[in-house]
């Protein structure tokens, strides 16, 4: 059982590890909120070189860029940190042809990676939603112990969770406690 405090500067690395699950703070990524009407979607997908999924909860992936549909007119985009300026410039150039709202959220959130045989049990400690409803390769915006989070399911027992930076210490300590408790039950 390893348990480390979340460092004040949010240095990426291992936060908690037990026989049940492992919690890691991953390196920063570029993050955007994209909102547009259906008529603009095809143009923006071409500009971003990334399909924008049509179904809420579905994801698309192209090279290092990823898009997850959060709502009827809303997507969250992630990309490499150095890619942020390029995405903003490309979308701004297409604004007249495809009106939209693109807001950079890179610094608002940090991402925890949660994996291991007990990953689903660990998330269920504070997640009211049925995890079976989120297929592998999908994602959802949902709530974790009162905080709005974006949950990405990469594999059956491997998740990423985007948490607002100000709530991250609370969420990290909850996850670390859960790791320890679930290992005791195994």
């Amino acid at each position: 059982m390893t348990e480390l405090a979340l460092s004040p500067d949010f240095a990426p690395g291992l936060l908690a590890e037990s026989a049940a699950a492992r919690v890691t703070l991953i390196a920063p990524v570029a993050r955007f909120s994209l909102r547009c009407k259906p008529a603009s979607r095809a143009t923006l997908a071409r500009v971003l070189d990334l399909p924008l999924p049509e179904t809420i909860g579905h994801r698309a992936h192209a090279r290092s860029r990823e898009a997850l549909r959060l709502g009827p007119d809303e997507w969250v985009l992630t990309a490499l940190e150095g890619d942020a300026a390029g995405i903003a410039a490309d979308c701004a150039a297409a604004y007249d042809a495809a009106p939209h709202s693109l807001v950079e959220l890179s610094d608002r959130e940090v991402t925890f990676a949660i994996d291991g045989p007990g990953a689903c049990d660990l998330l269920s400690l504070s997640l009211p939603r049925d995890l079976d409803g989120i297929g592998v390769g999908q994602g959802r915006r949902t709530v974790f112990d009162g905080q709005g989070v974006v949950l990405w399911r990469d594999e059956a027992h491997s998740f990423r969770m985007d948490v607002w930076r100000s709530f991250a210490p609370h969420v990290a300590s909850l996850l670390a406690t859960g790791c320890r408790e679930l290992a005791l039950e195994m």
Partner: protein
Amino acid sequence: MLLIHCPYCDETLPELEFAYAGQAHVVRAADPSSQTDEEWRDFLFIRDNVKGVHAERWQHVHGCGRFFNALRHTVSDKFLTTYKAGEPRPVLDDTERSA
């Protein structure tokens, strides 16, 4: 825990993802300055308080973020149906009405 069907996400989800937002179908006057004090009072404060089927607004605040409407029975607390904002209030048959 109530389970609520979001008409935008098309999923039935726990109530913790949702926020209640008052009575549905309360329409603001098209020309506000033409309203009398009594009409403003009714618009702002007077609500139905039915015993039976009630139309409510809800927001999927920890999800797609959309407002939608729900028909709910105020005695049993059951959600009878949910529908997208802007759609007319659905007509229920008698079996649903007595739920």
